């Protein structure tokens, strides 16, 4: 069985909050397109054709080859002289094994929490809106022939409701708002929820700062890298995108706040959509562009103005540490190599500007992990000396992210809004080589948000003191 997602003609309503292609409009803090990918995966489909129009480049950049969802994506481009049906008719043999077809913004709203199962029955499922958006699914050859022949409402047509799906049109800002509130109101548990799911139906992303005095009334969907101010009240039925800051005493309920938005002190959002500095009334689609950073604003990229200072200070510090470590490294590494206790290996990682590069990693031999010399080598941080050469040469930051492995960590690298592969990181400060993916993910996102000279100094101090301590305590886990 194959899926064809035909984006069709462009829609104007996403422009109200700054989105060009509607498939990337976020529902419950996930792009619309992902719900169809999820449905395809549930139905056992692995091959998906995306027929794109406006914003094709953005969609292709986002979806890639589909491997993130376990799908194989192929792309085609919409031509004005080619209707969705004529696209299918061009090569009917491709769909002989079954077809799930979508044209236009129809949201596959699930009616229950249970997983969708494909029934083994003949006939075809059909749903059509008055504006031309339609969805069809069939598995047998006769039904496919009827579908491709454009047969109107044959007797064998079935409703998607039999499968537990209510196909809901998303043709206006109001539809978008209603769907988001339904998801925030507890329906998110029917789908793959972003972030951590809670028993009350809420979903909370990574790196959310929530002070004790802030009140969160379930159920809400909170994106990654968000901060809620003191005495703020959030919920119920609130969807907050990634990288959003809600300032003190703000009050939000039954509203949607899209990514990269700042909500000012004491601001009250109810039955509204906030997108950067735009306030949208979903009832009539009126857009108010506020040039007032006290109320609503577009969040700037976090901490960019200090990165130049960090780079300069880091380079000088890297040179200093390298000068101190060079002689001990030469002696210790020479002895380790002569005694066969370990050696430097190359690992493929993502470097600065996200290019793939090589990282020198010290690997002790199996029997030598607890030898005094190896422990001393780690304790003095000499295993990081080769990286310091890279830092002085400008290939690494002094402090930053633990370099992400290529290609294993590609998904995380793509999701990070900024990436600073460094010599010292939270991983080196933990003094433990064990690498839990969830921990690595959290640390990477935390660093993007909280990076700064002070954070770097803490990483440096924790790494150096922790390693020195471990030579006596033997805490290090190799």
């Amino acid at each position, binding site marked *: 069985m194959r899926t064809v997602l035909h984006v069709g003609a462009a829609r104007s309503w996403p422009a109200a909050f700054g989105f060009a292609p509607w498939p990337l409009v976020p529902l419950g803090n996930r792009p619309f397109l992902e719900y169809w990918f999820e449905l395809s995966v549930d139905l056992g489909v692995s091959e998906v054709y995306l027929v794109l129009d406006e914003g094709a480049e953005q969609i292709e950049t986002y979806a890639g080859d589909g491997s993130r969802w376990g799908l194989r994506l192929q792309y085609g481009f919409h031509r004005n002289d080619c209707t969705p049906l004529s696209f299918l008719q061009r090569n009917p043999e491709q769909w002989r094994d079954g077809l799930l077809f979508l044209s236009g913004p129809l949201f596959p709203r699930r009616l229950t929490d249970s997983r969708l199962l494909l029934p083994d029955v003949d006939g075809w499922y059909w749903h059509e809106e008055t504006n031309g958006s339609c969805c069809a699914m069939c598995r047998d050859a006769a039904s496919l022939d009827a579908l491709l022949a454009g047969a109107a409402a044959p007797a064998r047509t079935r409703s998607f409701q039999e499968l537990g799906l209510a196909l809901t049109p998303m043709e206006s800002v109001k539809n978008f708002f209603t769907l988001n509130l339904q998801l925030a109101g507890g329906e998110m548990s029917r789908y793959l929820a972003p972030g951590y799911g809670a028993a009350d139906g809420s979903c909370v992303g990574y790196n959310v700062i929530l002070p004790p005095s802030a009140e969160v009334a379930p159920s809400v969907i909170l994106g990654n890298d968000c901060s809620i101010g003191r005495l703020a009240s959030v919920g119920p039925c609130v969807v907050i995108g990634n990288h959003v800051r809600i300032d003190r005493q703000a009050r939000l309920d039954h509203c949607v706040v899209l990514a990269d938005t700042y909500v*000012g002190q*004491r*601001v009250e959002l109810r039955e509204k959509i906030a997108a950067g500095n735009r*306030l949208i*009334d979903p009832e009539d689609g009126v857009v108010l562009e*506020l*040039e007032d950073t*006290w109320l609503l604003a577009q969040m700037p990229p976090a901490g960019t103005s200090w990165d130049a200072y960090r780079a300069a200070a880091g380079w000088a510090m890297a040179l200093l540490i390298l000068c101190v470590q060079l002689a001990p490294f030469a002696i210790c590494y020479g002895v380790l190599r002569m005694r066969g206790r370990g050696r430097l290996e190359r690992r493929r990682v993502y470097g600065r500007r996200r290019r793939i590069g090589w990282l020198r990693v010290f690997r002790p031999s199996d029997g030598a992990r607890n030898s005094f010399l190896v422990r001393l080598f780690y304790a003095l941080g000499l295993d990081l000396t080769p990286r310091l050469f890279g830092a002085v040469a400008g290939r690494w930051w002094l402090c930053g992210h633990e370099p992400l492995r290529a290609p294993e960590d590609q998904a995380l690298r793509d999701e990070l809004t900024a990436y600073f592969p460094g010599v010292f990181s939270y991983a080196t400060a933990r003094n433990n080589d064990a690498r839990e993916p969830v921990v690595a993910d959290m640390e990477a996102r935390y660093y993007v948000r909280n990076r700064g000279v002070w954070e770097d100094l803490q990483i440096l101090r924790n790494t150096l003191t922790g390693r020195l301590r471990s030579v006596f305590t033997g805490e290090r886990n190799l």
Partner: protein
Amino acid sequence: MAATFQTRDRVGVVVVTGALTSVSVDSFREQFVGWWQSMPEIRYVVVDLSDVDFLDSSGLGLLIALLKRVLERGGDMKIAGLQKKVRMVFEITRAFKVFDIFDNTNEACKACG
């Protein structure tokens, strides 16, 4: 921004036109204070915002400052004729809880009686 000041049955009616933002609040404040001091018999004021197409936190702050000044004389200030976008600013700043808001000036003037 332009403002005109009238009197109807001992109720001051201030009609504001244009945008009430940080650029124009100083000018409006000066005009209002001058008029207010020259009309000691007036205690109730209606601010007609039906021709105001945009208002930001500075404009709202000014309206609250003027309300305080009117309350000090023992009167009250009503707001009339909010356009959709200005109404949205009133909603998100909770200014609805501070001001009495009416659809038009006539209704607001009646409420002052």
